[in-house]
């Protein structure tokens, strides 16, 4: 589904990514791990075409280097960005429907009703401006918004950040449900023990390079190495 080989990226003159390699197979959940500032978000930006000078990114069988972010998104990537970035001056409902689409041509696509079922909180607040939502509510909204584009690949950059444990639990359940439905997902998160359970394959970034990769079993096995790269 998604393939990165030897990806480099820079902000202006300061290079951040040097050699990122990863692959998200169809229907699998893959994680990207690493400490703060190692380039996880930058990798996501490169995939989305938000940073110039990139090479070696393929999605759904096509080379997507040099395409504009909107073209890449229309190929079927749904992004839940770091820091949520909901549309502050739109209501909750408008946030959900504004960019809605059916990109995976799924008959059973996500609808407003299904999102509201997933996050009843959003239904309660449907007429409220997104800028006045609490942090957690905004997070739910961002996930809902990405799902409403019915993406082939969902990218979640720290999607459980700032959520109450109950909600976090719900989101994990929801991610597992998505996986069961065959959704491919690229996950960035810090809750290793959960990731081990829900994800299939893991990559670790260190200073802009992929330095480790393996499945969940390997992650447990190499605890030593992982600890060095990621922390507990």
């Amino acid at each position, binding site marked *: 589904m998604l393939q990165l080989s030897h990806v480099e990226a820079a902000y202006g003159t300061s290079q951040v990514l040097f050699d990122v390699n990863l692959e998200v197979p169809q229907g699998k959940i893959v994680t990207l791990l690493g400490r703060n500032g190692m380039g996880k978000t930058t990798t996501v930006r490169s995939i*989305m075409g938000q940073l110039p000078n990139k090479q070696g990114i393929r999605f759904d069988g096509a080379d997507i280097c040099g395409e504009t972010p*909107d073209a890449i998104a229309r190929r079927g990537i749904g992004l839940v*960005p770091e820091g949520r970035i909901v549309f502050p001056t*739109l209501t909750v409902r408008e946030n959900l429907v*504004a960019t809605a689409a059916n990109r995976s041509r799924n008959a059973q696509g996500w609808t407003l009703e299904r999102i509201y079922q997933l996050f009843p909180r959003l239904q309660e607040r449907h007429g409220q401006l997104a800028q006045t939502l609490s942090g957690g509510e905004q997070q739910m909204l961002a996930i809902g918004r990405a799902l409403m584009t019915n993406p082939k690949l969902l990218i979640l950059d720290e999607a459980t950040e700032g959520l109450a444990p109950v909600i976090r639990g719900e989101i994990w359940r929801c991610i597992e449900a998505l996986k069961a439905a065959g959704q491919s997902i690229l996950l960035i998160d810090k809750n290793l023990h959960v990731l081990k359970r829900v994800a299939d394959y893991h990559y670790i970034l260190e200073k802009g390079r992929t330095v480790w990769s393996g499945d969940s079993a390997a992650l447990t096995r190499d605890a030593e190495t992982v600890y060095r790269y990621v922390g507990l």
Partner: protein
Amino acid sequence: MLVLEQILNGIQFGIALFLMSAGLTLIFGIMGVINLTHGSLYMVGAYAAAIVAAKTGSALLALLAGLAGAAVAGVVIEALVIRRLYARDHLDQVLATFALILIINQTATMLFGRQPLFVAMPPALSHSVTLLPGLVYPVYRLVVIGVGLLVAIGLALLINRTRIGMLVRAGATSREMVRALGVDIRLLYTVVFGLGALLAGLAGAMAGPIIAVQVGMGEQILILAFVVVVIGGVGSVRGAFYGALLAGLIDTLLRAFLPGLLRQVMTGSGADALGAGLSSMGVYLLMAIVLLLRPKGLFVKQS
């Protein structure tokens, strides 16, 4: 009856102001671009209409030409200049669009000369009708009111009810995010900018038969349009509409009645001068008062 007529005049003027402000709300209030060329687009609309009217004699063709001329000019400006400025701060937008004003004005002077153009009033609309006994009113002004109302309703629906409206509003604050969700925002913005320009053109074409069509006509009304948008609250079509009505009414009523009132308390010439001075300041005073009471304008939620 005079009071009634003056109120009607105020409403009429307000709606004419709204026609001008409508496009501005779209571009300034919603897309978040300080577009000083809005006045120039208004002028382009007026010129295009005037020239086609002179060539063909058809008011309808003239109107279409005004709309098309301004819209095309808007799209060209957007594609060549404004597009590069969305991400920049307001200051760069001010400077760039100011430069565009100079360019457009001078080009218009070179092409069409410095003399004001003649625009014929469509014969069907050139008479007056009696609304109430003692209240005769020019048909053309009634048409202006009608068109203004239509634009207000259409624009409000577009912005608040359609996905285009939502996306434009979303793009104003989170441009990158809108793109990342798969929307070709460049195209969207070009279209919306063109629509804003088209509305400016509409205002210009409609104003042609009642004011002087000449270079510089846009700047006179530009500031007033900004004032209206700010009074109503930036980003709100409803705000621009009521803001325009309020400004139109205040302006008209002050002009109509203030000198008379003042004359009752002071000498004639002093009253006239003061009255005229105060009514010139009227809209600005209104805006200052509104902003002091509601710092974000009348129709925007205060935080």
